[in-house]
């Protein structure tokens, strides 16, 4: 494994400027004679020595998700805090995949321990495991959040650059996809037309595809779609343990257009629970995932 070069950022970049940069990169790629960068991930990691936590934003997030306001950080909120750092890796000039139009496939998070709102947090982000996917090229972006002594939160976000191929395009793979059968629902979410704007207002993620039908159309979508992390946040709200660590993961299938109704199912399992969501009307799967409560280790030194 080649050691990564550490780039220390003074402050978290704003997502707005990152999107602008990403859009610029996209435009550059669309120009004739645009030179394809080498299909190699940069061997760097970006570090943010101090991740600021705004308690008011935390309250706004918890209210938005219908969760109880507490002074510990929800896992998806942490994701939102360090998302600009992760983005800063993906908008590097030497990052081989175009950011805009990239599809968010899944997240896997180890929420190692409860994180108080007043914790002093730092974070490191890097990309790895660029690999072929039947629809293009997938890549993992890893972020680790620490309190200076140990990693409290580790997230793997997997993205897909659709139609971008490592080397040659593979032959048409016709995996027999099992048709989705919705389980018995245990709940239903009404996603209002302004859901994307409301999430963006809290977490700063003003990706145009989430904001309005107009801005989404500009990027080739019929209507605005819900933030994947909004749905992850809803799924986790009230379902995660408060005092212990846990792991969770989510996989995204089809996007949820706004406004719409999403039927959801939660099911208890031995060590946590699984969940899924699908279009109440379309019947198309939007996401599925699980929460696993980490077994208590006697060596946790308390």
């Amino acid at each position, binding site marked *: 494994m080649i050691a990564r070069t550490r780039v220390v950022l003074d402050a978290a970049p704003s997502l707005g400027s990152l999107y602008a940069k990403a859009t610029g990169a996209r435009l550059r790629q669309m120009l004739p004679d645009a030179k394809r960068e080498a299909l190699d991930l940069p061997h760097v990691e970006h570090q943010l020595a101090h991740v600021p936590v705004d308690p008011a934003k935390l309250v706004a997030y918890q209210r938005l998700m219908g969760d109880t306001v507490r002074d510990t950080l929800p896992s998806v909120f942490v994701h939102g805090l360090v998302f600009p750092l992760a983005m800063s890796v993906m908008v590097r000039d030497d990052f081989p995949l175009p950011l805009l139009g990239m599809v968010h496939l899944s997240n896997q998070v180890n929420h190692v321990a409860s994180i108080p709102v007043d914790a002093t947090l730092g974070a490191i982000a890097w990309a790895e495991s660029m690999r072929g996917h039947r629809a293009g090229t997938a890549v993992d972006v890893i972020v680790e959040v620490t309190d200076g002594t140990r990693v409290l939160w580790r997230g793997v976000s997997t993205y897909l650059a659709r139609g971008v191929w490592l080397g040659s395009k593979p032959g048409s793979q016709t995996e027999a996809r099992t048709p989705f059968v919705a389980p018995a*629902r*245990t*709940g239903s979410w009404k996603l209002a037309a302004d859901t994307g704007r409301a999430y963006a207002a809290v977490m700063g993620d003003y990706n145009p595809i989430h904001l309005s039908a107009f801005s989404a159309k500009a990027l080739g979508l019929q209507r605005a779609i819900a933030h994947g992390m909004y749905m992850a946040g809803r799924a986790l709200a*009230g*379902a995660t343990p408060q005092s212990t660590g846990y792991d969770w993961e989510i996989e995204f299938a089809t996007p949820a257009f706004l406004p719409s109704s999403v039927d959801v199912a*939660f099911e*208890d399992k031995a060590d946590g629970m699984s969940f899924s969501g699908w279009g109440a009307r379309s019947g198309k799967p939007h996401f599925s995932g699980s929460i696993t409560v980490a077994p208590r280790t006697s060596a946790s030194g308390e």
Partner: protein
Amino acid sequence: MSDTQQPIRPAVVIGGNRIPFARSNGPYSKASNQDMLTAALDGLVARFGLQGQRLGGVAAGAVLKHSKDFNLVRESVLGTSLSAQTPAYDVQMACATGMEAIGSLANKIKLGQIDSAIGGGVDTTSDAPIAVSEGLRSVLMDLSRARSTSPKLKAISRIRPRDLAPNAPGTGEPRTGLSMGDHQAITTKAWKISREAQDELALASHKNLAAAYERNFFDDLITPFAGVSKDTNLRADSTIEKLASLKPAFGKNLGAEATMTAGNSTPLTDGASAVLLGSEDYAREHDLPMLANFVDFEAAAVDFVHGADGLLMAPAYAVARMLKRNNLTLQDFDFYEIHEAFAGTVLSTLAAWDDPEFCKNKLGLEAPLGAIDRSKLNVNGSSLAAGHPFAATGGRLVATLAKMLHEKGSGRGLISVCAAGGQGVVAILEAR
């Protein structure tokens, strides 16, 4: 402490009163919770000559309540001819409000803390509180906190047109976003309850309630209100064909498998009820009847949010625990009053009690609780016919069952009430 403790004494149901239940936005649309509760209390006071008496306590509540009604029950008591020295408090446990109010008062009587009490409940969905939107509320709160013009203007500038739309209270579960009916639809399907079975239960409810009116059963249980003297939801002439012709109203996502209609589900209803409880000494001293002993009650709750149980299945658990504590079997009852939130609720609960797997895995029982004699179920009708003003249903059930037991002169009755939030309260009454 121990040497001054009193032995536990019986708490008796002396009688009850309710106003006729009326479908929402009907004859009671201009009546407030306080109006209706006061009327129910007034009727009870008149029936038992309680004018000027200082009772041990009055506990009741409403599920849908205006913020100005923070002291709803006390305010209602002050409007009656009870002594103004009668203390009162509000209880809220969704549709189990009435049961919880009555049960906790019975406990106080049993402990000798009080000698007499009135428990009950009231609800209106016609005069429900309308809240301003969260956005407008936030602005208004900041406005009231602002001390000078500039921050006030700044706050006002935040108002958006959509903030001006009011928020009406929904009957949806906050944590799942599903209405109670849609929740029950999941349970109904899981227990494979047929449309026909639900319609039959609904029809029986109407027929039984109509027959009870016919034999003047409610003469000393109901006092008319606002020109209404009979539950307006009652359809004495309902038929199985009419019920079968209705389109599904809940669980519509199930398509052809949807079985729950407006006919086998309770409608939104307005109404109020009250039950007079006392110690034996109190009843004797005041020459009041003793209809039944309030023997015991039990609350349970289930995790419906994560699908472990159906929203309205808590009574299945509560009954199992209460039977064990009282060393009784499910068959040791002469009457079963199972609140008909939906026909599917009653039938799912009965199916669960009779299901070896549910009883073993969920209730931890060696053998299932078993089936009940259906001819003893809701014999004078229940919520499908009478309607269900959430908090008022407990009082209706206790008064009705107590009277039935007293008429029979012996035996025991079981009450089961499910409630929003995955809760339920059940109770045992014994004739006297």
